[in-house]
């Protein structure tokens, strides 16, 4: 039974990922007084891309065509090890949260290489900016997670969620700081405003889009889908680590159903918040990003220090 659910869970995760992107876009349009596309628009776009003939640059090597599959596979694997609507699944122990960061880094590494493979200035520019931002956001993310891992004495996601569930609703200063740091990191890592703008194709400001500029057809579909999985992954991480209440703790159908409903509700809430933030803030200059991520790092550090100073031994 648990094996079956462990197989179904990532599939549901992957299928639901474009929905979150669609929802965020919809809320954003409403907030900006525009007419919103349908919730299913991301699915339609993926279907459209799959039907289009891919065009690949003449000088591209095998790596260019292999990279989208690796990016997608690593995102799927990351989705498989994160508890989505049920905690105790056998897949959760394959990799802990450090390995999860490793999977995301693996996908990014290949995307960065693919950006440089064609040999255009855009690709190199996007890759350079991507590694810059990643090298600043990764330590901030791990720091936020370490603050939590030290409280729960585990880097295993399922055990950490168990710990939070056991301690009940309590406002811990370390969690508040870590949550704030994590949210900032999630914005940077998923390429949203104010760090990057997924909707832009303005040459001088784009980061992620510059890297994948040469992709089209099925390859672009895989990369877009992987990006949507990443967005959802950060949403699920924030929702399940910091607000795990409602997640299915056993494998009865009733609790699984309510777990699924709970996580979807939380994700819709987070998506709406993201849309609101993207409406309120403007995209910042590239060389302001380090201050943004430095702040995220500082918040996470404060989280950990407050755990050590205030919480240990109480």
């Amino acid at each position: 039974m648990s094996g079956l659910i462990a197989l179904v869970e990532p599939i549901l995760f992957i299928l639901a990922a474009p929905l979150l992107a669609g929802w965020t876009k919809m809320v954003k349009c409403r907030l900006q007084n525009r007419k919103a596309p349908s919730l299913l628009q991301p699915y339609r776009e993926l279907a459209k891309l799959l039907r289009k003939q891919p065009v690949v640059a003449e000088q591209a090597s095998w790596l260019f065509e292999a990279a989208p599959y690796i990016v997608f596979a690593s995102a799927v694997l990351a989705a498989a090890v994160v508890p989505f609507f049920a905690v105790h699944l056998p897949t959760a122990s394959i990799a802990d949260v450090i390995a999860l960061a490793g999977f995301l880094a693996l996908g990014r590494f290949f995307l960065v290489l693919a950006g440089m493979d064609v040999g255009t200035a855009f690709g190199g520019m996007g890759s350079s900016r991507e590694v810059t931002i990643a090298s600043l956001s990764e330590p901030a993310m791990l720091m936020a997670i370490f603050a939590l891992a030290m409280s729960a004495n585990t880097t295993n996601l399922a055990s950490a969620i168990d710990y939070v569930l056991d301690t009940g609703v309590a406002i811990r200063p370390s969690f508040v700081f870590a949550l704030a740091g994590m949210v900032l990191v999630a914005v940077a890592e998923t390429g949203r405003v104010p760090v990057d703008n997924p909707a832009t194709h303005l040459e001088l400001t784009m980061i992620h889009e510059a890297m994948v500029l040469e992709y089209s057809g099925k390859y672009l579909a895989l990369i877009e889908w992987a990006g949507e999985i990443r967005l959802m992954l950060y949403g699920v991480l924030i929702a399940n680590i910091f607000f795990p209440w409602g997640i299915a703790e056993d494998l009865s159908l009733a609790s699984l159903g309510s777990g699924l409903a709970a996580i979807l509700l939380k994700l819709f809430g987070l998506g709406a918040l993201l849309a609101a933030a993207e409406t309120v803030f403007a995209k910042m200059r590239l060389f302001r990003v380090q201050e943004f991520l430095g702040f995220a790092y500082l918040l996470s550090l404060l989280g950990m220090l407050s755990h050590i100073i205030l919480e240990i031994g109480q």
Partner: protein
Amino acid sequence: MSLFLAYLSVQCALLSGALALFSEHRMILERAANRLAPLAGLKEWPARSERLFAAPVYPRLLQKGVFGLLALSGLAALIGGISALLGQGVTVDQLPFGLPWLHWHVRLDALSGFFLLIIGLGVIAASLYGPGYVREYRQTEHPLWLLGLCTGLFVAGMELVLLADDAFFFVIAWELMSVSSYFLVAFQHERAANRRAAFLYLLMAEIGAIAIILGFGVLAGFAHSYSFDVFRYTHLTAGWGTAAFLLALMGFGMKAGLVPLHAWLPEAHPVAPSHISALMSGVMLKVAIYGLMRFGFDLLGDVQWQWGVAVLILGTASAVLGVLYAFQQNEIKRLLAYSSIENIGIIAMGLGLSMIFLGTGHGELGVIGLLAALYHSLNHSVFKNLLFLTAGSVLHQTHEHDLEHLGGLVKRMPKTAVLALIGCLAISALPPFNGFVSEWLTFQAALQSSSLESGILRSVIPVTAAVLAFTGAMAAATFAKFYGIGFLGLPRGRHAARAREAAHPGMLAGPALLAGLCVLLGVLPTPIIRMLEPVSQLLLGQTLPSASGEGWIWLTPGSRTVASYSALLVVLGLGLAWWTARYLIGRLAVAEVRRSRPWDCGFGGLSPRTQYTSTAFSQPIRRIFAPIWAVRETIRTGGAEALENTPVHYALEVEDRSWYGLYAPAARGVEALARRVALIQTGSVRLYIAYSFFTLLLLLGVVSG
């Protein structure tokens, strides 16, 4: 058995060096063979002899012999090391060399066995790779006999360091290793920069050796003996123990390239022939780590947690500065040398954590740190050897060592490119490769700090873990640049555009062996970590039964609820996801791919010159962390008229701060001191005799008084 193999390995290395000598002295070998052959009963010898010693055959045959013996030495070291690890016993021996009252003591235990294994792997790969690489030296004036001789002595020296069991023998072996590698660094001595690098290398090696000798001196002062066995049972006072440890840390740390004494390393390692660079960066640095472990854990004993803090801080600084400097390099082998500093830093972090836990009475947590350090030593030796060898192939085929002139090699040298990609993935600590496992273990050790009593340690250690996270991300950035600029894109120079795959099969076989190991060590970490248990049993007196407690596919340093990682299932999961995606895309999407020119914004005329350069790629980080480097950027325009179309020259120099902050002032200080001392050197013999006389009087006074 294992000791016999170790001896065999040393002898093969020495023989290989001795055989290389005969490349200049064909006559001696020929005469000796002609005299010996009838005694051995070989028939038709004269005819054979003529064939063997004919002009075109002889050098090739001799080279085969030299590298064959070296490979045999590596193989013997590998098997000997494994059997010493698995045999779990300690073998001791005495050799009838050395001082009359102090014969050379020899000892092979799990720790030296493990490092013998590392040497064996590196030497096998280098000896597969070497024959193809040195071929071009035959056309130039470089004496191959010197290269062969010094390589043999160098390998033998490293192995003898591991086998030594008394301070005298240790220092002799250490010097053999240092001095023979000096000649290897100075091998291409026609360039002034190489001579300078070699001199700096020798100077730093000797300063380090003095610190090591003084460290042994402190121990010997208490033990009244030079044998390591006596050192082990000697208890030092806390102050003297710390003094001895700090001396050893300085000596071994200098050799290992710990910040701030690292500046010689990126000068010296890249200028040696590539297979030697691989041995120096991948293997010799580990011998220095071995020395530190042997000295700190085994000989001194009673590890203080303060030592651990010193090692941890030095390690963290080395890791982060090493990788930041590596990211700014444009020369491929220099970039790799700086990345060695980073990896040595990570190893030192594991060691420091282990010392902290051990010194505060949490031995079982110390084991995690020690295993992380040992496993990263093995992993780094594998992937750094691999990267140096592939970089050597690039250098050999293109004669370019500047990233700005490379590119497009993934098409011109496809096999080398795949091997280099595996090395880049492994060194960037990406799952499921081996670098990830050891960094993951280091993280796990650091996260156990909440069980420490001291609040300061509890908060400092996780910060070092976050620095390690930054290091990992920067390493990925560095090797994305290394690979993306060097192998992908369009060729940036005519040599790169005409590059071909290396002709000699060994130049692919050596790296391929290491690439296979990168995957194997990444996918099956648990059985290999179990193999390391005798080392932690030897040094810390305990092992980590829980690491493999859940079966061989799970790696669980604490317990399963604390942290678990299964590389095999990760590979299966990745494979499954990949295959499913491929299958579904194959069914659903348009299969046919159209090839076309890339998007050029409608301007046309994309050329290799419009690509992003290596300097540009690292610019954002250079700007964000500007104070780390001494950056000199000059832009020179040709004409005075603003609108005139004149050439613009851009020059960028990124220099190591430790050079101006530490090395240059030290050199100035030595010079000033030398000038003072020179005052008493007047050149008058009478005055010198007077100096001797008064010194003698003074000494007599001291001795009698």
